[in-house]
């Protein structure tokens, strides 16, 4: 394309980037969720159902959700930098935000779980073959309960970008995996939080599987100087909105 680089050979990444652009030209999916069959992310090929989903009213059971409480979560679970005998390497950060339903109501006292790579972009997982150093002081898993305002808060290390094998020279933008429950089973969400300004977003088939630009923005945290703790850690804010109808937990004596 660029007249300055006529000799450059087309790369596998170019093919993927073109496929990402082509997919983005199709109408956005309902609610901004990615289409499960998304060609640029190759592993979807044999894993996305070929039949359409069957529309069904949520059952009474599916209108409720599991309950978690203080016994499920230790206070230190929310600080991923204190899970070892020493301090992990990397940039210490605070990540906080609110979990809301689509009506803007806070999701209270509900479980939030996170997992992530270390500062070098390496997961503490046997299957991670990225030749970057493990950090003996960082595992990368955390959990907490939301407060009465729906707020969660984690202290962690900014994860590094890492390569993966979707295609030659494929790299994931830095991200933290999040798992969320609502007040109804139908609100279950697993997603990833990204950091602002990452140059890898539009090369990455997973981020780009969300084709609607506004929906993409909802995956990106905001740097927030009021969350930043002086002399200690940079702060990020990221609110999460759960899809699906919420529910008031049923009175156990009534069901």
């Amino acid at each position, binding site marked *: 394309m660029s007249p300055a680089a006529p000799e450059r050979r087309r790369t596998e990444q170019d093919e993927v980037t073109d496929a990402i652009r082509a997919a983005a030209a199709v109408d956005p999916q309902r609610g901004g969720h990615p289409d499960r069959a998304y060609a640029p992310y190759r592993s979807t090929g044999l894993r996305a159902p070929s039949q359409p989903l069957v529309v069904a009213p949520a059952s009474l*059971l599916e209108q409720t959700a599991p309950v978690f409480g203080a016994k499920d979560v230790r206070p230190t679970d929310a600080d991923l930098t204190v899970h070892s005998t020493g301090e992990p390497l990397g940039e210490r950060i605070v990540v906080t935000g609110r979990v809301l339903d689509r009506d803007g109501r806070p999701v209270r006292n509900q479980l939030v779980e996170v997992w992530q790579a270390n500062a070098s972009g390496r997961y503490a997982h046997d299957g991670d073959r990225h030749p970057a150093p493990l950090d003996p002081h960082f595992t990368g898993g955390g959990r907490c309960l939301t407060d009465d305002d729906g707020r969660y808060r984690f202290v962690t290390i900014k994860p590094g970008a890492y390569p993966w094998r979707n295609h030659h020279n494929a790299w994931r933008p830095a991200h933290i995996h999040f798992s969320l429950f609502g007040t109804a089973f139908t609100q279950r969400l697993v997603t990833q939080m990204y950091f602002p300004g990452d140059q890898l977003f539009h090369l990455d088939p997973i981020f780009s599987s969300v084709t609607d630009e506004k929906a993409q923005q909802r995956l990106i945290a905001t740097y927030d100087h009021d969350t930043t703790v002086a002399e200690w850690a940079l702060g990020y804010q990221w609110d999460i909105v759960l899809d699906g109808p919420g529910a008031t937990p049923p009175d156990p004596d009534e069901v």
Partner: protein
Amino acid sequence: MTLDPSPSQTVGPFFAFGLPFDGGGDLVPPGTAGAISLHGTVRDGAGAPVPDALLEFWQAGPDGRIPSRAGSLARDGRSFTGFARVPTDRSGDYTVRTLRPGPIAHSPEAPHLAVTVFARGLLHHLFTRVYFPNHVEANAADPLLSALPEERAATLMAVPDGWFGGPGYRFDVRLQGPGETVFLDLIGGSE
């Protein structure tokens, strides 16, 4: 006010140290009266086992009550929390030890377990249900089962098969292709 939802992203391959927990599949301790094994294999469109899927189950107790007790992540051996979470193993297999759910009062649906399927390569989780064949009348009246062609409804039915410790049921998940499991777009609710 209607807020736009946060989009889903895949659980990826490296959830093993983030989501599974000890006893995740043990809704009841071994030796519990009436305990069943619910087990199966997750397969992809080529019929190959999926070794990096994660399944979650949510259910009522045998009395038909929907649990509202905390403690799934720190099982105390007494409380029935109704929630299980299990990763598939290298063969794509999973096992949950639980009690069969009873009918929930005023529920038009037959007793079932609600299931969420996560996996690397799945950009958005999938919902499905496990029903049990012994609830003949309730199953025949179930709004979902009765609306499906027979061969599709069969993908939601646990198949009795014994295990060494007592009664068991097989529930396989086929993500794609022949015998593809019925996956649900759950709508409405109690608003």
